[in-house]
């Protein structure tokens, strides 16, 4: 017994033919779908195709997922594992932090962390120069490695989307005068840069876990 899947679309279109772009076994049986999939498999992929619109990096970290989630949920952890964000201080606005991104010559960066313990998602909503419109979103998720790799530890999934503001600074008036760079200039480095930062996170969390130190250090408590 199958469910009435896509019944509304069929009724709306007045036809049971699939809408364009849909590949389901009923209308694309395996012998039709397999060649399509095979064609999509290449030995190498251009950087733009892999990191153009979405920048995703992942890694395994040998420490308990809940403890890693707690650490990541505190915005100040970015002072430790990011490459260049330093000097986090609270602002007048609840939950909004100010720091400096040393990539941009004393550029201000504002961060608000939105975390969900049940899903173990930690999203850093950030922006350079101003804290009114936080458009640089770092989407992270901590997964229990026991479930996905059959071993203790954490898997961290991390994606950024290529927001149009990366290409064009919407608030130039907020930028320090004569700053030669814009955060989006670095977009093509994000794959490598974020992986480097994820390795920082791994090194720090694994060191603490291995040596019996709390993952979230005393100064953040």
């Amino acid at each position, binding site marked *: 017994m199958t469910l009435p899947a896509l019944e509304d679309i069929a009724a709306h279109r007045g036809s049971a033919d699939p809408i364009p772009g849909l590949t389901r076994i009923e209308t694309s049986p395996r012998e039709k779908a397999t060649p399509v999939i*095979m064609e999509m498999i*290449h030995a190498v992929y251009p950087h733009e195709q892999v990191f153009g619109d979405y920048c995703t990096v992942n890694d395994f970290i040998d420490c308990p997922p809940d403890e890693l989630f707690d650490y990541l949920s505190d915005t100040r952890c970015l002072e430790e594992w990011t490459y260049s964000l330093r000097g986090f201080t609270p602002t007048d606005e609840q939950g909004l932090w100010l720091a400096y991104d040393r990539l941009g010559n004393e550029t201000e960066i504002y961060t608000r962390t939105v975390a969900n313990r049940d899903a173990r998602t930690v999203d850093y909503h950030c922006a350079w120069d101003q804290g009114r419109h936080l458009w640089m979103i770092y989407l992270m998720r901590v997964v229990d490695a026991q479930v996905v790799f059959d071993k203790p530890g954490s898997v961290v999934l991390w994606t950024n989307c290529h927001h149009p503001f990366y290409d064009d600074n919407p608030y130039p008036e907020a930028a320090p005068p004569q700053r030669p760079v814009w955060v989006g200039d670095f977009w093509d480095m994000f794959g490598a840069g974020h992986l480097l930062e994820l390795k920082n996170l791994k090194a720090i969390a694994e060191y603490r876990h291995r040596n019996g130190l709390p993952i979230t250090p005393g100064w953040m408590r």
Partner: protein
Amino acid sequence: MSATPPPVSLVDVATYLPEKRVPAQWYRRYSDEGDHLRDNPMFRPPDFRHHAAADESNVDMIERAAAALVARHGPDALAGVDVLLTHSQLPDLPIVGAGGEVAHRLGIAPEWIIDVHNGGCAAFVLMLKLARQLLAGGTARTALIAVAQNAAGKIFTQGQVRTLAQAAVPGDGAAVGLVALSEESPVLDVECRNYGNNAVDMTLAADPPRRWWEAGPGEGYVGFNEGKIIKVLARGNRQVPEVVRAVCERIGVKPGDLDLLVTNQPNRLLLRNWNEALGISPERHRDTFGECGNLFAAAIPVNFEAAVADGQIGAGDIVMMAGFAHAGDFAAAAAVQWGGRRK
């Protein structure tokens, strides 16, 4: 103290394609609608392939390829051959290889006759390495390396097998290479890698199942299901660029600067993926897939011959020959600085 080994050259290559040229149409008549691999790009049929006659042996085909070499270089071309290496994709007899009979037919008396059964679609490179080693070691001066593939006109035209999508892909052909101690067309470097853990994935199947040597109603075919095809594709994607890069690094040539790449040609997908991975334009990655189909071990020399014959490459050009075998149990690459063809 080690002396520099004397240079070994691939002096020339000659090929043979059976006269019978079979269009894709021939298979469509028999196509079995139930075959799930039908539309799979791994088995999308080439426009043509050549079929050896049912009674045309590997020895016959090698003899015909060697005749082309003799026609070009004169009756004494093979006189000094003291190493004969042969590779038959589908041996004429499982018990005895082609080497002895080939030597007899060609009227040569090499000290070394070796039937090279491994190496699969990259056997030509393996044999080049073997010949180079024997010659550089001082035990011999001239080697004839010979590959033959005649399974297309035999296995893949049988009543049951020809209904399968895989049957339209193989083609028959043979080639010989003359290898000698000389500086004229030097083999610059060779890389051979074995992946024995993948050897078990090469299987022959029959319905109902039986051992290949047992009698039974089902005709034998290559037992690759979709899962295995994807695995083998992924191995080919990885292995061939790896061995090419290894040779390129040692000879100090960037893959993209190679004058010619010739590989085995299992399907269009791998050809595309290899030139993408190595940054080589499709024009400089010469293939004969559309005309000849999957030539197995004969593909590398046949594709090379095609590029020589129409002047795509000339004296001094760097040619990379590369391929992988079976379900990914072996991969090899060899670079040759082509000396040109004597007129």
